[in-house]
């Protein structure tokens, strides 16, 4: 009896050790990025390694914003917010309306159109950037917010997710509203949408993360400095200059903060979102 308890305790100790080591490995680079961004350039790759900054130097965070006239980081941050928020809202609109349409109406071609939309999962963004760029350019949307936002707001995952969600809403709610004389669009906005809060929040964080990180599309589409987004700005900041590491890392930390904060508040929904899109097999 006691030997069983001992092996169980050993097992659990080993498990905790392994899980804790894995956890540390996964958090450490972020921690290291923050720590190193506070080091002086002469200490940052010094031998022997200085784990903590010998001097805590906040200056890199100031210099990112002030010391490089070719880089306008406040503007990049603003642009990233504009593009991400708009693209997420647009994505919610497309996903909620069509998800609802596919889930709640039995019209001719429902399955065909749904398959068509879903088939776009097969089209990786990188495989269409060239013709997409030509199209967007012909529409006169090069170097515009709209040119960034519209293609980044389309995701078949979102449509799929909202359709799955609206399937789970009982038809009785809709039927009884119809009997009360509400029209179809009032039913959608006043009854169905409020029920979809959880699914919509999941989609918000899911899609915000994708838009915030997209690099190839802004690199292609945007050449005027006023429309550069943050991911692109940092990539150029790192590549163009002989930029000191503390300042690169400070810019990196700034780019991470909005999503880390969003994640802290909405982590529950993020996990649910992955589950909803990923697990209906």
């Amino acid at each position, binding site marked *: 009896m006691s030997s069983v308890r001992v092996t169980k305790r050993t097992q659990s100790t080993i498990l905790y050790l392994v899980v804790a080591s894995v956890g540390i490995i996964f958090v450490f680079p972020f921690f290291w990025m923050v720590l190193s961004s506070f080091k002086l350039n002469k200490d940052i790759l010094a031998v022997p390694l200085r784990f903590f900054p010998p001097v805590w130097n906040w200056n890199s965070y100031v210099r990112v914003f002030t010391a490089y006239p070719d880089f306008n980081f406040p503007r990049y941050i603003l642009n990233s917010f504009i593009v991400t928020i708009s693209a997420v809202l647009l994505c919610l609109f497309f996903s909620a309306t069509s998800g609802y349409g596919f889930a709640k109406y039995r019209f001719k071609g429902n399955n065909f159109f749904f398959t068509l939309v879903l088939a776009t*999962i097969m089209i990786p963004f990188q495989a269409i950037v060239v013709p997409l760029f030509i199209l967007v350019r012909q529409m006169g949307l090069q170097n515009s917010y709209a040119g960034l936002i519209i293609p980044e707001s389309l995701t078949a995952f979102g449509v799929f997710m909202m359709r799955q969600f609206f399937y789970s809403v009982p038809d009785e709610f809709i039927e009884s509203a119809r009997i009360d004389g509400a029209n179809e669009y009032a039913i959608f906005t006043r009854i169905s949408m409020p029920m979809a809060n959880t699914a919509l929040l999941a989609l918000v964080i899911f899609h915000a993360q994708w838009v915030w990180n997209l690099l190839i599309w802004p690199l292609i589409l945007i050449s005027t400095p006023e429309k550069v987004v943050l991911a692109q700005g940092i990539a150029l900041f790192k590549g163009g200059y002989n930029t000191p590491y503390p300042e690169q890392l400070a810019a990196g930390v700034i780019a991470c903060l909005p999503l880390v904060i969003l994640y802290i508040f909405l982590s529950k929904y993020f996990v649910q979102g992955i589950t909803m899109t990923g697990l209906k097999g």
Partner: protein
Amino acid sequence: MRKASYSVTRLQRHGYIFILPTLVFFSLFLIYPIISAFRLSLFEWNLLAPKEFVGLQNFIKMAGDSRLLNSYLRTIHFSAVSVAAINLLAFVFAVMLGSRLLRFKNFWQSLIFLPVVLSIVAVGVVWEFMYQGTGLIPIVLREIIGVSPDWLTDTRVAPYAVIITYVWRSVGYYMVIYIAGLLGVPESYYEAARIDGAGFWAQLFYITIPSLRNTFTLAIVSCVIFTFGQFSIQYVITQGGPSRSTEVLSLLIFREAFRLSKFGYSSGISVIFFLTLLIFSLIQLRLFKSGAVGA
């Protein structure tokens, strides 16, 4: 009776209005471009001069393009190793976090998940920094095993530097998919197995893994699609170097089109890219459909 069914049909037609915006925008910005890629691949075009029809010449040129072949093989290598590592680790972590011996599961889960929500460019910046000669990784490795490769300058090692970064960043996402899958396995299966005297490994191989068959397929297939098009990490860490050892297809398309203005040729590469993924995607589509029917 007739009248009722007529009005029901009319009611159902409102569905068209709900799906209309999505259909229009998806057709214009996703379906039209992929068709357009096929058409453009038959032309030579730098966007300024008129398009010149060249038939299959781009594809003939591609067959003899050693740079393209290199990129293609690099992409497959990157994808195969990454997908295998990501899914193996994600599954193992999911099983570990599912153990009844472990408490504070949400805390551990969020630690492993953290890299998923970090900015990809920032991830590239910090790993490139850690791979430097006197950076953290070589110093720690020399401390522990005495040697460290030149992560960013050795053509045999650089692909793995990129893979490690990408795997680190992605595992948490797939881990959550596996955790969700594990929660779907009925507890009664395990109880029955324990009564029959099955140990941890027997339960793992005879219950857990077979029950997660769909989850595995779904996670792996979607992982292949995302990984095959990975661009940011290579762009930030290595820019395709050293000696093109990390120049994956998306970097090459980017370069051919937007640095060299070869829009026809790069469309040809996109077509090859797309066709390679098609077979994997078809499997995924079927999975999604079967899931949708089940809901």
